[in-house]
């Protein structure tokens, strides 16, 4: 990536186009499709599994400075985020905050 515009073109082709194509396909198809069809369920599952795979990879093979935090700390903080989320009756904000706070506390102690 040498020319600055090249990165924007990459982003446009691989990112923007590949995302909006589904939204506009949904717009075009919206009058004739059943939302509960097996095809939609399969599509939803594929997309969910993909993002779940991304999640565990981001924790285990962490990007940037997150890789400098011990993997055990990352895993404990992640698990505690889930537990706090469930204890807080599935409150997204409290869960994320709890996990991040655990990471900071453990990272501070061990680092």
């Amino acid at each position, binding site marked *: 990536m040498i020319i600055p515009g090249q990165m*924007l073109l990459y982003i446009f082709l691989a990112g923007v186009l590949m995302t909006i194509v589904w939204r506009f396909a*949904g*717009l075009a198809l*919206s009058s004739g499709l059943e939302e509960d069809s097996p095809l939609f369920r399969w599509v939803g599952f594929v997309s969910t599994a*993909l993002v779940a*795979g991304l999640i*565990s990879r981001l924790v285990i*093979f962490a990007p940037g400075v*997150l890789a400098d935090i011990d993997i055990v700390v990352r895993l404990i903080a992640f698990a505690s985020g889930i537990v706090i989320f469930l204890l807080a009756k599935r409150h997204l904000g409290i869960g994320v905050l709890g996990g991040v706070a655990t990471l900071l506390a453990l990272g501070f102690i061990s680092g």
Partner: protein
Amino acid sequence: MEASNAGQTEDCGNMPVSRYSAFWRGIRETSPVPAIILSTAFVGFGALTSQTGLSLLDTIFISVFMFALPGQVVLVDEIGRGASVLTAAIAVAATGVRLLPMTVVILPVIRERAGPKWLELAVAYYVAVTVWVESMRRAPHIPRHLRSAYCFGICVFLVLVSSLGAIVGFLLASKLPALLAAALLFMTPLYFLLGMLISTRSVVSLAPILLGLVLGPIFHLLTPDLDLVLTGLAGGTAAFLIANYLESRRPRS
């Protein structure tokens, strides 16, 4: 006309009377907690683009024009690994395909035959989880001919606060101590997982999540180039078969 309408809305209190005031009402009524959580998640995204070596312009461009966080993170992940445009495009497309059914479901709610097409198009463009949840919850209480303007207000507000979040994350990541910058990056996977778990109440809907979590790192080691797409296809299809098997054994209620 617009001004007097806006004034009337204030007087009557409840229902917006013009598209213009419906738009502003959409902005004002977007729930603050989901908006704060979403923009905080975008702070994590900004930290990620900064750590990957993208520019602030790239970060804003992605946030404003993609506005689908999982796809955005997949894209930046692929860029970070030096993937070709085609590889990245396949991974992003496989991530974004879930937007199709979401758009299909939301359009009948906001569609009006006589209304301006561009508003409907604009709302469809910004369909994403938070927009979807907020719109589906609130739009039914708005008169039909004002719904697309109202939902467009929700979209504009969420895109704005999210992009601001991404900018803040981008600028903070290089200035914060390493531990705090790491915490910003850590928010993204946790936010995604908890976001998925919110609506998960059965073994059937948990299956693709668990399979994806397990298969992701395995495919990453086996086939680093196409690991995400293969994880999605293998995990999603296996979960689909398991779900159908479980449901065929149980009589439908």
